[in-house]
C-alpha cells in the first residue's frame, strides 16, 4: 500500500511539474509573439532599405511618397504620417470633448438608473466592427458633409476622422469615467461643504484630480485611432499628400498597407517591402502612445490606492 502511495505521489509531482511548465510555455508564447513582431518588422525594413531606390535619409527626410506611379519613385514617409495624424486629430476633436462630457455626466450627474441604460448603450458602440463604421462614413457621413460644403470629395479625411471618433468614443468615455469615479468621495464632499455647485465640483475638483487618468484614456484612444484600418481604407481615399485641409483626400499608413497587400504591387518588389517599413513606423507610433498612456495610468493608480 505504501508503495502505491509513493508512486502516486511521484506521479503527482511529475504531472504538477509538467502542467506548470506547459502553462509557462503558454505564457511565454506571448513573449514569442512580441519577438516575432520585432524580428519581422526589423528584418523586412532592413531589406527595404537595402533597395537602391531607397535610403533611410529619404524615408525620414523627404516629404514625397510616390511608390507606385510610373516615373521616379519617392519614399518619404511623412505624407503618410501626416495623413494619419490629420485623420487622428479630427477623430480626437470629435471624440475627446463628447467622450469627456459624457464621462462627466455619467460619473457626476447621472443617477444609477440612467447609468444602467446609458453605459451599455455606449458599450454597444465599442462592439461594432470597424468595417461597419467605414460603411457608415461612406454612405452617411460623407453625403452629410457634402451637403454642408461641396468642397468635401467622395473620399475625405473628415468623414473617416468622424467615424474613427465614433469608434474611439466608448474608449475615451469608459476609461475617463473610471478615472473620475476613482477620485475619492472626500474631495467632492469637501468642495460641496465649501459651497461649490456641481459645476464647480466637477470641473474644478474632480476633473483636475482625475486628469492623469483622462489623459491616459486620450492617449490609448489615439493609439487605437492611429492603427485603425478599415475606416480609412473605405472613406479616406488613396492620395498620399502633405495637407492639413480637412476636406482633402489623404492616405494613412494603414490604408497604404491595405493598398499594397490587396495586390497593387508585385511581391518581393520595393513597393511591397516599403509596407513593412511603414508598418514598423506605425508599430512604433502606437507603441509610444500606449506606453506613455500606461505609464500615466499606472502613476495615477498609485496615487489613490
Amino acid at each position, binding site marked *: 500500500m505504501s508503495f502505491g502511495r509513493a508512486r502516486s505521489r511521484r506521479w503527482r509531482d511529475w504531472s504538477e511539474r509538467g502542467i506548470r511548465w506547459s502553462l509557462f510555455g503558454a505564457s511565454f508564447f*506571448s513573449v514569442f509573439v512580441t519577438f516575432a513582431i520585432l524580428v519581422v518588422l526589423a528584418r523586412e525594413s532592413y531589406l527595404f532599405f537595402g533597395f537602391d531606390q531607397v535610403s533611410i535619409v529619404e524615408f525620414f527626410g523627404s516629404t514625397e511618397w510616390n511608390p507606385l506611379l510610373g516615373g521616379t519613385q519617392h519614399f518619404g514617409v511623412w505624407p503618410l504620417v501626416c495623413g494619419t495624424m490629420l485623420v487622428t486629430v479630427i477623430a480626437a476633436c470629435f471624440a475627446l470633448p463628447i467622450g469627456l462630457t459624457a464621462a462627466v455626466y455619467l460619473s457626476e450627474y447621472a443617477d444609477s438608473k440612467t447609468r444602467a441604460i446609458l453605459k451599455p448603450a455606449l458599450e454597444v458602440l465599442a462592439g461594432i466592427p470597424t468595417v461597419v463604421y467605414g460603411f457608415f462614413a461612406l454612405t452617411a457621413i460623407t453625403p452629410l458633409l457634402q451637403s454642408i460644403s461641396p468642397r468635401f470629395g467622395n473620399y475625405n479625411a473628415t468623414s473617416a476622422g468622424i467615424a474613427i471618433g465614433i469608434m474611439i468614443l466608448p474608449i475615451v468615455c469608459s476609461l475617463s469615467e473610471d478615472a473620475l469615479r476613482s477620485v475619492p468621495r472626500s474631495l467632492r464632499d469637501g468642495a460641496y461643504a465649501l459651497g461649490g455647485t456641481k459645476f464647480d465640483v466637477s470641473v474644478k475638483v474632480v476633473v483636475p484630480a482625475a486628469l492623469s487618468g483622462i489623459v491616459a484614456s486620450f492617449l490609448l484612444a489615439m493609439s487605437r485611432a492611429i492603427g485603425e484600418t478599415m475606416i480609412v481604407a473605405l472613406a479616406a481615399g488613396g492620395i498620399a499628400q502633405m495637407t492639413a485641409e480637412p476636406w482633402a483626400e489623404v492616405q494613412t499608413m494603414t490604408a497604404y498597407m491595405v493598398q499594397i497587400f490587396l495586390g497593387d504591387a508585385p511581391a518581393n518588389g520595393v513597393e511591397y517591402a516599403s509596407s513593412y517599413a511603414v508598418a514598423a513606423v506605425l508599430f512604433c507610433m502606437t507603441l509610444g502612445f500606449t506606453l506613455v498612456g500606461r505609464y500615466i495610468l499606472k502613476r495615477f493608480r498609485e496615487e489613490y490606492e
Partner: protein
Amino acid sequence: MTIPNLTEIVGRGTLRGNARRALANRVFLWFCLMGTTLAILVLFALLFSIFLEGWSSVTWNFFDNFASRNPSASGIKGPLWGSVWVCAICAISALPLGIGTAIYLEEFAPRNRVTGFINLNIMNLAGVPSIVYGIIGLTAFARMFGGFGSASDPTVLLGYSYYDEYESMEGEVVRVKVSAIERDGDRVEDGVQASLARWNIWVAHPAPRAPLINNTQVEVLLDSDDGSDVWRTAIAHVEGTSVERSTAQSASFDIVEVSAANAMKPITQSREDSWWSVSLPFGSSVLAGGLTLMLVILPVVIISSQEALRAVPSSLRQGALALGSTRWQMVREMTLPAAIPGIMTGAILAMSRAIGEAAPLLVLGGFLLVFAVPENLMSDFTVLPLQIYNWAGRPQASFHALAAGAIIVQLVVLLVFNGIAVFIRQKLQKNLS
C-alpha cells in the same frame, strides 16, 4: 499630483456672484447632457441608417447564394461559412493558450521581474494595431518566412492525392494516380498506353523516371464507356523493355503500345485534397486566417481571464492549500470553477472581436470573392467583414444595400454573442467573497 486647494477654487467662484455660478452650473449640465445624447444619437443614427438600407437584402436567398457580379443573385454563403471556420480555428487555438497563460501568471508565476515583463508585454500586445498582426500572420503563417517555398507551390504537402491527366485516343481526359507531382521534367516516359476492347487503359509507373520492370505494382485507371472511372491495381509483366501483359484484380488486359516513342505525356497534373490536407506554407488558407486572428485576440483573452481569476477570493486558494492540495489541484478544483463564468464572458467578447476583424485578414490576402464553402484547413476563404468591405467599396448603390444586409447579419450575430456573455455574467456568477 497634489490635491487642489479647495478654498481657493471655490472661493474664486463665490466672488463672481451666486447667480452666475448657478447659470454656469446649468449650462454645464446641458453641455454634458448634449455630449451624452450626441453619443447615443450617433449610435441610433448608425443602426437606423444601416437597417433602413439593408433590410430588403436580407432574404433567404441572401444566405444561400455565393457572391456574384449580379447584385440580385449575391449572397453571403461563402463569407458566412468562412467566418465560422476562421473563428472556430481562432477559438481552438487562442482560448487554451490565453487561459493557460492567465492561469500561469495569476496562480503559478512567482512575483518577479520575468512575470512583470510578461504582464507588461501582454499589455503592449493589446495595443498593437490589428493590421500589424495581419503582417505578422502573412509572414509567419501564410509564407513561413519563405522557408518552404511560395504559397502557390508549397514544399510540404500532407493528405493530397496527385493525378496526371492524359488525353485519350478519343479525346477524353483520363486521370492517372501518381505518387507525387513532378516539379520539372517529364517523368511520364513510363506512362504506357494500352487498350482492350471497351476499355481505354492508362498505366503509370508509381516510381518516376524508373523503367517499368517486371512485377511492379501499377495503378490503372479503367475509363469505361459509360464515363465512370474504375481504379484497379495491376501487376506489370515486362519482357525486356516492353510491357506485354498485365493483369488487374478483376480485369485482365493487354498492353498494346510499348515503346517509349509511343509513351504519352500528361497534358496537366492535378492535385486533390482530402479533409485533413495540410501544406506548408499555409498560404491564404482558413488555417492561416484563424491563427492570425488568434494573435489578435490572444491579449484580450489573457487580460480578461486574468481579471476573472483575480476576482476569485484568495481565501478559497488558502483553504485548498491548507488542506494539502498542490497548486494545480487548487486551480482545478477551486480557482478555475469559480472563475469560469468570468473567463467564458471574456472569451465570448474576445470572439466577438475576432468575428468583426477585417484588416488582418485583408492583409493575409483573404479572397474577396469566394464561390465555395471551406472544406478543409487549406481552403480559400473570405469572412463577413471582408465581404462587407468589398461591397461597401463599390460605387453602385445595389452593392451598398448588400453590404448593409451583411452588416445586419453581422450585428445580429454579435448581439447573440453579447447576449450570451451578459447571460453568463448574470446567471452563473456567484458571489464568493
